[in-house]
């Protein structure tokens, strides 16, 4: 049966794709570095990086194989039908043209749907591997210090990332055994009891939900009355106050709160033991701080009381509540330091707000994001206008709570050790001194590091999203625009260059009478490199024109120029294909 040119072209393409995929696979293997990626990511990396490289170089690969197919593998005799008359060349390329149109569409889907996903996935795995290495270092240091509790915590965190690691699993089992048999040192065991479990929870775990959350006002009042009856006046006052805050019309709630407060304040007059009285006064002081919106003060009081009487039901409850309240307005220094020792994103700088002609430039030296937790270090916030600085603050640490960066970091034990915003110039109200309200989505922060090269790896959807808010963050929009234009250009380039490849390949086809000489085969491996150079020049030419139009007339004109230019090039490519003759 006679081989049809279409069949030949697709066969050459398939062989070329397979060979290049294999070469990319080998290259990915060469690129794999166990220090960068955990062993469990080896195969996913090899697969994803192969896919990534394949999509990245799909255009030059396709053009090379098309040129080779028409230049080297299709012979004039292949174009003769059974009647002995050669078919016109343009009729022979109809199917390949349709094929390349479909291929251009497939490429667009791959470039926009698959490429950003695999790129992001590789980055994520690299990040997780870095994180795991960070945990590994921590547990090794903890083991050296014989702090087994902490070592176990970091091993647990490591195993979240690399659960199948038998070696680490065995290490964890040994540690667990050591801890059960009391192998931990006294100090570290004590530490483990106090802050170890808290820290672990804070690093991405959920807290236990408050059992009273979501109750109705009636239920709160009923609960307050029950506590009052049980002579637990703190709880009675707490829930009655809560009910009253929710519904200030409820006089009964106010009544219960008042009665409970009377009991609380009358306690010291009841002639209890001196020590007990002091303890009770401190408890009252802590409670007062808690309900009067001074959670940090309350936290330290209850933390101190907890050490004196850890079994006191009130202390347990209000320490927990104070800790929860503290976490809404601050965070712990050790928690931030532990997190910020992990790998993260650096040098984030963007305009956070522009109001009344005043700009707020926010700079973050380092950002570490784990799950929903965002920690920051080296924060600087500068609000200014043309006349000068409104305020300029610096803070060593920050944590994202809600939509604000909270910059108040406290010590778990030492109330004097506080890290907070320092105002180099100007000042703000006390209530917002340690707060920066973010105008951007937290997940967008990583794109705002002034590193415009990052845009290359973003998908069209991400670029358009960034474009819509880019200006307000201070991003130069035309850098996003040119990325968008170049991404739109790619499928057109595939189609135009593949069609030009047909004419070019056929026009410059080999005229050997017998078998191809060795030199021809020896040249084939170098062909993709030549084509890559020419392809790069072609893209560079397009880029220059588009960037020029973009700079002069804006995005829409540049987009129209792109479409018109590609239509003209496509037309030219079609004309060239149509102009080819079947025989010499």
């Amino acid at each position, binding site marked *: 049966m006679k081989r049809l040119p279409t069949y030949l072209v697709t066969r050459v393409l398939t062989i070329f794709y397979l060979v290049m995929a294999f070469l990319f696979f080998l290259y990915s293997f060469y690129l794999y570095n166990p220090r960068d990626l955990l062993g469990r990511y080896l195969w996913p990396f090899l697969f994803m990086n192969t896919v990534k490289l394949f999509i990245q170089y799909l255009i030059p690969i396709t053009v090379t194989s098309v040129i080779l197919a028409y230049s080297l593998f299709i012979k004039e005799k292949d174009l003769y039908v059974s009647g002995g008359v050669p078919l016109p060349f343009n009729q022979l390329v109809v199917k390949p043209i349709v094929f390349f149109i479909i291929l251009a569409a497939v490429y667009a889907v791959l470039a926009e749907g698959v490429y950003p996903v695999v790129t992001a996935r590789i980055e994520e795995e690299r990040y997780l591997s870095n994180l795991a290495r960070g945990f590994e270092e921590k547990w090794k240091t903890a083991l050296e210090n014989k702090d087994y509790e902490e070592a176990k915590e970091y091993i647990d965190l490591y195993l979240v990332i690399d659960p199948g690691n038998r070696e680490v699993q065995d290490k964890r089992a040994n540690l667990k055994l050591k801890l059960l048999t009391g192998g931990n040192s006294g100090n570290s065991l004590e530490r483990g009891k106090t802050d170890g479990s808290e820290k672990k929870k804070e690093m991405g775990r959920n807290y236990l939900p408050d059992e009273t959350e979501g109750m109705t006002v009636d239920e709160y009042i009923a609960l307050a009355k029950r506590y009052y009856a049980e002579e637990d006046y703190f709880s009675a006052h707490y829930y009655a106050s809560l009910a009253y805050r929710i519904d200030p019309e409820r006089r009964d709630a106010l009544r219960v709160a008042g009665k409970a407060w009377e009991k609380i304040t009358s306690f010291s007059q009841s002639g209890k033991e001196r020590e007990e009285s002091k303890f009770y006064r401190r408890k009252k002081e802590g409670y007062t701080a808690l309900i009067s919106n001074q959670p940090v003060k309350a936290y330290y009081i209850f933390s101190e009381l907890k050490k004196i009487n850890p079994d006191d039901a009130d202390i347990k409850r209000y320490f927990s509540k104070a800790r929860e309240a503290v976490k809404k307005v601050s965070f712990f220094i050790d928690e931030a330091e532990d997190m910020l020792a992990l790998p993260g994103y650096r040098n984030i*700088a963007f305009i956070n707000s522009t109001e009344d002609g005043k700009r707020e430039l926010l700079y973050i030296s380092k950002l570490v994001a784990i799950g929903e937790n965002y920690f920051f270090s080296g924060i600087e916030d500068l609000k200014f206008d*043309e006349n000068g600085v409104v305020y300029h603050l610096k803070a060593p640490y920050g944590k994202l709570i809600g939509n604000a960066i909270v910059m108040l970091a406290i010590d778990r034990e030492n109330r004097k050790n506080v890290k907070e915003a320092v105002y180099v110039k100007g000042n703000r109200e006390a209530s917002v001194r340690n707060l920066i309200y973010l105008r951007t989505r937290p997940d967008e922060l990583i794109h705002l590091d*002034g590193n415009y090269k990052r845009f290359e790896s973003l998908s069209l959807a991400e670029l358009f999203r960034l474009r819509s808010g880019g200006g307000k963050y201070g991003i130069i929009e035309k850098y996003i625009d040119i990325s968008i234009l170049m991404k739109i250009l790619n499928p057109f380039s595939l189609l135009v260059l593949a069609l030009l490849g047909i004419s070019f390949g056929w026009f410059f086809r080999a005229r050997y009478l017998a078998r191809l000489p060795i030199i*021809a085969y020896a040249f084939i491996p170098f062909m993709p490199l030549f084509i890559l150079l020419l392809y790069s020049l072609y893209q560079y030419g397009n880029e220059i024109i588009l960037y020029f139009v973009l700079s002069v007339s804006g995005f829409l004109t540049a987009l129209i120029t792109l479409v018109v230019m590609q239509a003209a090039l496509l037309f030219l490519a079609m004309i060239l294909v149509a102009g080819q003759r079947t025989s010499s």
Partner: protein
Amino acid sequence: MKNDIILIPLFLLLFIIFFALFTTLDLFAFWTSLSSYGSEKTGGQFLFALWPKLVETLPVSLFFTIVFIEFRILMKPGTRFFSFLILLLLSLAILVFGVKLLSGFEKSQTSRVVTEGIEMIPGRINPMGRYLVYPIAVSGNLLKGVAIAEKEERSGNAAQAKEAPVRKAPSKGKPEGAGALRFVKEAQIVEKGKEIRLEGSEGTLFSVYRSEIPARPFSMKDQHFIETFLRDIAFFNEKLLSYAKTGGKDFYMLAFAILFLFLASGFFMRITRWPLFNLLFSFLASRAYFSLYSFLAGPVSLQIAKYMGKSEIAGSMPAYVMILIGILLLLIDILFVPFDRWKREIEE
């Protein structure tokens, strides 16, 4: 003979096409990399920038034309001697007179010629090496309400880690409490050679090299293939123009040598019965000649000048080497490769 004569209009036509295309692209690329501050970026400047750009693109347009015209000679061969002579004289005339004429124009326009500058967009964060500059307003080279962020050296990603360290000028007047962020009411961009400085009222705020501020943060131009290619061409142009300005025999020697080598390489178009191979090989050879010249006129000339102490020999040595290679190629062509091979073996 007819085939030889027809080469003249064909050569000119091809040359004009390449010249127009490359000059337009070069001009566009130049325009987008121009300083946007103030009134400098005007249509007039665009036109005045045309002369230096024409000088820059003339040689490379000529070389592309020679490669393509060789394909025409392959298909329709005239006589080996005449076609070679015609092309050599024609291309030499274009190169010598073109460069002389255009650089003369350039000289007369020096006071108005635009130099590449940096782009500074008001109300946006402008990258300048390790610094990010946010001016509220830009007027001329004067920035108003300027916030400056200085990035930390250590970087969280590979792209940034590769950033070249920025030379920092001694700062006289760092604002109080300066850290990563600084604010000055006014600052001025001062461009001095390869250095760009941001000057505040109390001294230099920082300085960076021009190369650290690309026209745009990413470009196909950054790709290794293109970057080295453009660098080699720029090096050749620079040498050719400097010789043209001094007006010595080095200019004529270099112009003759490079054209002779390119034309002697014409036989690459006939070495196999696979024209695609021949064409790509010719391009590869052309590319290699620029690298060869960069190598000879760069490190080799320096070594020669160092050991022999004769800078004039070192200066003309690359031209002699290219002529020598050209003569060798020409001999191979005459002895082993039939001039009308295509016509005899393929078409008949």
